[in-house]
């Protein structure tokens, strides 16, 4: 019997291969901001999974551009009640490196102006983000075991952006932020926003990292 060989066209209708091992990093949802007051990922809402399905989640925020008329902070908060309130207590550490486009004096230091000590307010991910047409903030955040009801919820971020000083001068700035949501309730929502004005544009991605 002759062997039947299939070509790419023969399998062009295939969308799933149950027998093939899938990758461990699963894209759960992509949200594109367009003059959005904020962007939220809430477990069980709009196909979002943010529960015990994955032990680790990765969030990426790419080219988030403020709608505000001036420089403005980009920030996030956590929810333990599926997005009704974004007010989880947090303690964080922040350090940053920056250098001006026209000022070669680089700075590398702990930045107490941006950390939280048992605060429930929003954690600033990027301070005085520029609002120029080609400016914005990009970064990523890991959240560990958000559904745990035993442990606090660790998160770690690295953000890269153009910041503006009071005179409108541009700085390349990298912020390293880490801390924990100091709750033993499950964290099931996360919210991103600018401190003032809309998220004019930006792409937000939520990934789950499997443990099997």
């Amino acid at each position, binding site marked *: 019997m002759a062997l039947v060989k299939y070509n790419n066209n023969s399998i062009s209708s295939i*969308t799933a291969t149950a027998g*093939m091992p899938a990758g461990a990093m699963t894209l759960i949802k992509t949200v594109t901001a367009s003059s959005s007051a904020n962007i939220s990922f809430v477990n069980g809402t709009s196909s979002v999974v943010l529960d015990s399905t994955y032990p680790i989640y990765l969030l990426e925020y790419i080219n988030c551009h403020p709608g505000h008329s001036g420089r403005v902070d980009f920030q996030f908060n956590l929810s333990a009640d599926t997005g009704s309130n974004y007010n989880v207590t947090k303690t964080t550490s922040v350090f940053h490196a920056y250098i001006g486009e026209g000022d070669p004096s680089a700075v590398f230091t702990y930045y107490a102006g941006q950390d939280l*000590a048992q605060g429930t307010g929003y954690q600033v991910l990027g301070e005085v983000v520029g609002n120029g047409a080609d400016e914005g903030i990009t970064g990523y955040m890991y959240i560990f075991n958000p559904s745990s009801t035993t*442990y606090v919820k660790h998160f770690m971020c690295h953000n890269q952006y153009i910041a503006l000083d009071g005179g409108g001068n541009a700085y390349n700035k990298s912020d390293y932020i*880490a801390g*924990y949501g100091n709750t033993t309730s499950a964290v099931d929502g996360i919210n991103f926003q600018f401190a003032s004005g809309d998220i004019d544009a930006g792409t937000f991605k939520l990934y789950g990292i499997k443990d099997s």
Partner: protein
Amino acid sequence: MSIVKLNNNGVKNATTFGSITGLGNLKFISRSTASSSSNLSITSGIDSTYKEYIFFFNNIHASTQAHFQVNFSADGGSNYNVTKTTTFFFASHNEAGDSTSLSYQDSHDITGTGAHSLGLSFSSDSDAGGAGYMHLFDPSNTTFVKHFIAVTGGFTDSDYYNTNYTAGYANTTSAVNAVQFSMASGNIDSGTIDLYGVN
């Protein structure tokens, strides 16, 4: 001649498509779970299959406050004593909000064969459990040293949150084929370490 088109059901038992053996670039390899464990040693799955491996640490809970640490083996786990040179710095902030620090920690870098700190003073408080990740690059290479980069976070018994950044290399041209995690004193009371390969 009409083209025969397959549907999903027609290929549900297929485990490869020619040279395609899996989907996605991050591959789960194994989970190690601590239960009052003196260490977690990963002695399989670290080979030439991947150029990069990632270890994720989740809720590493110490039996008594201690540094979380790593060592490498070049003989399948018989000995964890590969020579290392590393750097270590950390950022620290307390819950009281009256103390901060960003500093290089020359007491936690290493040039030697002993275990290397990945995270400082992980607390044994009931809700404490450090977290983080470590990238290990090309461990099976027999030409180059073995670089690793790690970030961890954890809080102390006195409610300081430390974010730890460390990197270095295992200074061997032998293949590294096992990795051991432990606390500098006491046990890993609980927690998981997941190993992934990166295509």
